[in-house]
């Protein structure tokens, strides 16, 4: 079946460095993508989204890049801070109303002091 996955299950970065979290998806019909952050003991929290008619979108300290040719999504976090330590999920949706999101397995980001 269609799936969303991540290249790296864990990522450790030094505080202040930039982080890049990758996600591969296989459903070429997906047209809406979201990155979520999940801190320990909490539910996922929306970070940023992007639709398939865009290849880049920027937020505060975060940038999402979408490469539809290779079905790849990435989340870039600038100047990573200790508070960024969490599990990050990409999610994709291909249905007409974006109801059914398929989540990737998650990447744990650890920020080292």
């Amino acid at each position, binding site marked *: 079946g269609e799936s969303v996955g991540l290249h790296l299950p864990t990522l450790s970065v030094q505080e202040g460095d930039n982080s890049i979290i990758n996600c591969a998806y296989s459903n070429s019909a997906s047209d809406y993508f979201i990155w*979520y952050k999940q801190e320990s003991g909490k539910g996922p*929290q*929306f970070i940023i989204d992007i639709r398939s008619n865009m290849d880049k979108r920027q937020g505060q300290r975060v940038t999402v890049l979408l490469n539809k040719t290779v079905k790849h999504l990435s989340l870039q976090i600038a100047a990573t801070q200790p508070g960024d330590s969490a599990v990050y999920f990409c999610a994709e949706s291909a249905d007409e109303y974006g*109801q059914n999101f*398929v*989540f990737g*397995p998650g990447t744990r980001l650890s920020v080292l002091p």
Partner: protein
Amino acid sequence: DTAVSQTPKYLVTQMGNDKSIKCEQNLGHDTMYWYKQDSKKFLKIMFSYNNKELIINETVPNRFSPKSPDKAHLNLHINSLELGDSAVYFCASSHKRLTSGRLDEQFFGPGTRLTVL
């Protein structure tokens, strides 16, 4: 002030029991969801529901049933609990854009950790 709330936060029960998890959202959203997160952090949608339509993930056993007394609540009932039901269950909600019909980002509750013994 909590946007999406769930009760209980922890639920420990014996195999074979029937239990319910409650979810409430005060965001005025018209669509609610239930997700299951396993021990490996994998998130899987179980149901999405608005006042018109219930969409069920076909892999979800029929022992699981969502019940919505009103637009702000979507409770999850589980019958004949099994060991494999142990997981964290998340409720979420979102708003449907009137212009496009597309759904906005989902807001998640804090989760309910279910342990079946």
